[in-house]
């Protein structure tokens, strides 16, 4: 108890080693205890084993934005694959050996010169984890979720993304059973790059829509 109160009352201002906190969004002490109690009961009752629990976390941690980047790069070089990715994201992922079984449905939305998509989940923090891994802390924050729907251009500007005024911004609020992934535009000047080189330009943020894909390094 003392520990818990110490943790929350501690003033971190000016302390460069202060733990990063999203103002109380981290699981509370009570939830940590609850999670551990339920997990130990389920293991004790044989619903799953400790090793299965550990493997599930390992699997979750193995998913990362590089998986999504492979899908995007393939879509950039192969128009037929792009059509399949837009029509049936899980089927297209399976073609590249990406396993999305037992994960929520995914919808892919394509950025074009006229339309830019921005993903959020105003009700919680829905995210295409099978393809991008664990979401960044800011994606789960109250401020991002509230401001992405109300002031998307302001949010984009703060991320360093300035869109032409005549581009339509379409905010996708993942309120239900689908998880959204942005297919960013292929940057200009990348005609000679290989698929693997293209994948390195596809950042996590470009697949959430707060940024565009990286420009290639200039040739020296």
């Amino acid at each position: 108890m003392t520990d818990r109160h110490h943790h929350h009352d501690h003033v971190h201002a000016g302390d460069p080693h202060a733990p990063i906190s999203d103002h109380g969004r981290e699981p509370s002490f009570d939830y940590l205890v609850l999670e551990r109690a339920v997990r130990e009961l389920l293991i004790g009752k044989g619903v799953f084993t400790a090793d299965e629990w550990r493997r599930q976390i390992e699997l979750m941690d193995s998913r990362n934005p590089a998986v999504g980047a492979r899908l995007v790069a393939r879509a950039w070089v192969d128009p037929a694959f792009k059509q399949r990715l837009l029509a049936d994201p899980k089927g297209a992922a399976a073609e590249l050996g990406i396993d999305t079984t037992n994960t929520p449905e995914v919808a892919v939305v394509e950025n074009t010169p006229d339309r830019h998509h921005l993903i959020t989940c105003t009700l919680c923090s829905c995210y295409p984890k099978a393809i991008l891994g664990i979401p960044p802390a800011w994606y789960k924050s109250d401020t991002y979720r509230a401001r992405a729907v109300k002031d998307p251009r302001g949010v984009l500007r703060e991320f360093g993304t300035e869109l032409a005024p005549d581009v339509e911004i379409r905010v996708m609020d993942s309120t239900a059973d689908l998880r959204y992934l942005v297919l960013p535009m292929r940057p200009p000047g990348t005609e000679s790059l290989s698929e693997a080189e293209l994948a390195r330009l596809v950042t996590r943020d470009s697949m959430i829509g707060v940024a565009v894909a990286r420009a290639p390094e200039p040739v020296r």
Partner: protein
Amino acid sequence: MSRFSPGDAVRVRNDWPETSGRRVHIRTPHFVRGREGVVERVLGTYPNPESLAFGQPGLPPQTLYQVRFAQAALFPDGTGNARDTLTADLYEHWLEAHP
């Protein structure tokens, strides 16, 4: 059969089950309730999360729709352009036809 098709004008029910005093789990954001939008896509049929969240089977299943709204209509004091839009995924029982 789904009740609505892409292009149909719909209005989100202006309903606030949160005020009933019951415990509820609602996946229709407050800021779209009572607002008018257009069906963009029919997303399929899913168990109703409002019952699923309480350990019930989610029956009858609900058709889910991607519904597009004009961003400026949802947030008149926002900073969006007239062309900016927001889409939310909404279950059929939250939608009514809007003439």
